[in-house]
C-alpha cells in the first residue's frame, strides 16, 4: 500500500468512527443501510466483476437469511448466537441449490436467475402462514450475545461497520488468491482456462456459493438493522439494484459497490423527498449508467487520473 492510499484509508476509518458524533439518527440509519446494501452489491460483484456472470437472484439469499433469522428470533425466541448463524446457513444452502444456474452462461444465466429469484419472492409472498405474507416478520430485536447486547442504532452502526470492514478484507484476500485469479481468467476467456486444465464450472459454482454466503451475511445484518423483513427484500428490484450499485461504483473493485450503494441510496432518499416519480428517476439512473458510465465511477476516476498522468 502506497503512503497516499494508507492516508486515505486512515482518514476514511477516522471519519467513519467519528460520524455518529456529527450526524443525527436519520443519517446514521441511512449510512448503516448503505453499508448493508454495499455488502449485497459486493456479493453480486464477486460474480459480475470477477467471474463475468450477471446474477439477478441475490435478493433471494439476502431475504432467506433475513427471514430465517427473524422467524427464529421473533417466533421461537432463539438467541442471536444461534439465529444469526442459522440465517447464514439457510442462505448458503439456497446458494448451493441455485448454484446449478452456472451450468448456463450469458443470457440464459441472467434469465434463469431472474426466475429463481421469483420463486423465493413468490414463496415469501404467498406462503403467508409461515412468512407472514406481505406484512412479513416484525419486531426483530437488536442482536444480543450473552451479556453483550446492541442497545442503539449508533452501536449497531459500529457493528455493521466492523462486519463490513472484516468482510471486505476477507474479500480482498479471496479475489487475490489463486482462486480469484482463476475466476478472472474465466471471465477473460473461459475456453483458454479450460484448455489450461481449469474446471471452469466448478470454479464458477464455488464463486456462486461464496457470493451467496456474502449476500446472506448482508441479509442477517439487514434484518437486525431494519427490525422487520417482508417480501420486498426478495423482490426483483432489490437484486437488480444491487447489480446497478456495483456498476455505478465500479465492478471488479472493493470500494466500488459501497460507493455505488451510497450514491443510489443517497439519491433515492434525496429525490423521493421532493419528487413523486422517484422510481422513474432511478430508472433513468440505470439508463444513464449503462450508456455513459459503463465502467463505473471508480473506473471513470482511474481513467481520468490515468489521462492526466499521461497528458
Amino acid at each position, binding site marked *: 500500500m502506497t503512503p497516499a492510499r494508507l492516508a486515505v484509508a486512515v482518514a476514511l476509518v477516522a471519519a467513519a468512527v467519528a460520524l455518529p458524533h456529527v450526524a443525527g439518527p436519520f443519517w446514521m440509519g441511512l449510512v448503516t443501510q448503505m453499508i448493508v446494501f454495499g455488502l449485497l452489491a459486493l456479493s453480486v460483484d464477486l460474480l459480475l466483476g470477477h467471474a463475468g456472470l450477471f446474477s439477478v437472484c441475490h435478493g433471494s439469499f439476502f431475504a432467506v437469511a433475513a427471514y430465517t433469522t427473524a422467524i427464529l428470533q421473533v417466533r421461537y425466541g432463539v438467541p442471536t448466537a444461534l439465529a444469526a448463524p442459522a440465517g447464514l446457513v439457510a442462505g448458503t444452502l439456497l446458494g448451493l441449490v441455485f448454484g*446449478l444456474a452456472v451450468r448456463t452462461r450469458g443470457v440464459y444465466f441472467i434469465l434463469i436467475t431472474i426466475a429463481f429469484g421469483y*420463486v423465493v*419472492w413468490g*414463496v415469501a409472498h404467498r406462503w403467508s402462514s409461515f412468512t407472514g405474507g406481505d406484512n412479513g416478520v416484525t419486531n426483530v430485536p437488536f442482536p444480543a450475545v450473552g451479556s453483550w447486547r446492541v442497545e442503539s442504532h449508533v452501536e449497531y452502526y459500529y457493528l455493521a461497520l466492523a462486519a463490513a470492514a472484516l468482510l471486505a478484507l476477507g474479500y480482498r484476500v479471496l479475489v487475490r488468491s489463486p482462486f480469484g485469479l482463476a475466476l478472472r481468467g474465466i471471465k477473460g476467456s473461459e475456453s483458454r482456462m479450460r484448455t489450461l486444465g481449469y474446471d471452469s464450472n466448478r470454479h464458477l459454482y464455488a464463486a456462486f456459493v461464496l457470493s451467496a454466503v456474502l449476500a446472506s451475511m448482508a441479509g442477517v445484518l439487514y434484518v437486525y438493522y431494519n427490525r422487520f423483513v417482508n417480501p420486498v427484500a426478495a423482490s426483483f*428490484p432489490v437484486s437488480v439494484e444491487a447489480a446497478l450499485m456495483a456498476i455505478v461504483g465500479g465492478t471488479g473493485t472493493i470500494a466500488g459497490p459501497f460507493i455505488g450503494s451510497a450514491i443510489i441510496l443517497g439519491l433515492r432518499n434525496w429525490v423521493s423527498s421532493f419528487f413523486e*416519480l422517484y422510481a*422513474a428517476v432511478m*430508472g433513468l439512473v*440505470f439508463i444513464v449508467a449503462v450508456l455513459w458510465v459503463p465502467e463505473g465511477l471508480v473506473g471513470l476516476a482511474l481513467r481520468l487520473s490515468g489521462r492526466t498522468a499521461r497528458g
Partner: protein
Amino acid sequence: MTTSAILQAINGTSLAALLFLVASGFTVTFGLMRVVNMAYGAYYLLGGYVGLSLAEATGSFALGVLGGGLAIVVLGYLVDRFLIRYTGENHLAQVLLTVGLAFVIGDVALKIWGGDSLKVPLPPALRGAMELPGGLVYPTFRFALIVFGLVVAGLLWLLYTRTPIGAVVRAGVDDREQVAATGIDVDRLFVMVSALASFLAGTAGVVGGAFLTLYPGAEWEILVVALVVVIVGGLGSLGGAMIGALVVGLLDAYGRWLLPEFSYFVLFGPMAVLLLLRPRGIAGREA
C-alpha cells in the same frame, strides 16, 4: 373435481394464448437481433393502459386493441433506435437499460392511471358466459382469447415458415452476417420484426387487461412468466414459444388451484429440472 380440472385446463390454455403473444415477440427479437428486452412487460402494461383509455373513449374494444398495439410500435421503435442500439451485443447492458426503462414506464403509468386494478371494458358480444357440452359454464371472452391466440400463432407460423420475409428472418436467426452479406437490408428487417413484436406485446396488454386487469407490478409478473416460457421453449424459437406457453399456462393454472401457496414453485420447479437436462430449453439449439 373433474369439472374443476377441465375448467383449469381452459384457464391454462387461455393464459397460454396470452403468454404466447408476449413471449413470441421476446424470443424472436432475441433470436434475430440478439437483444434481451426486459421492457416487454412494461410494453404489455402500457399497451393495456392505452387500449383501456381508447376503448373507454371510443366505446370500441377493437380500436382499443389496435391502438394499444400501435402505441407500443411507436414506443418500441424509439427505444430500439435511440437506446438499445447503443448497447451493441452486451446483454448485461441491455438488461440493465431495459429494466431501467421498465421502471420509468411503470412509474409514469402509475402517475397517469393510478394504483388501482383497472379492467378493459369488453364489447357486449364477448361479455357473459357460454355453456359447454356437459353443462359447464365458462366466460365467453376466455374462449375468444384462445381463438385469438391460435389465429395469431397460426399467422405467425405461416409468416415464419411460408413467406420470403419469414425465410429471411429464419436465416437471420441462424447467421445474420451471412444474410447481410447477401445484400439484404438487415436493419430494415430488424425494424419490421421489432415492430411486430411490439405490436403483439401491446395488444396482449389490452386483451390481458380485460381478464387479468391492469395494475402497477403487472408488468413484472407477466414478464417473468413469459421468461419461463422462453426458457422452457428455447430462446429464439417460435415453435418453442408455443409449446412453452402451453406448458407454463397449464402448470400455472393447476399450480394455483392445487397448491396456491407454492404456485410459483410449481411453475419454476419443472423449469429448473428441464434446465438441468437441457440447458437450452426444448427447442433451443446448442450454440
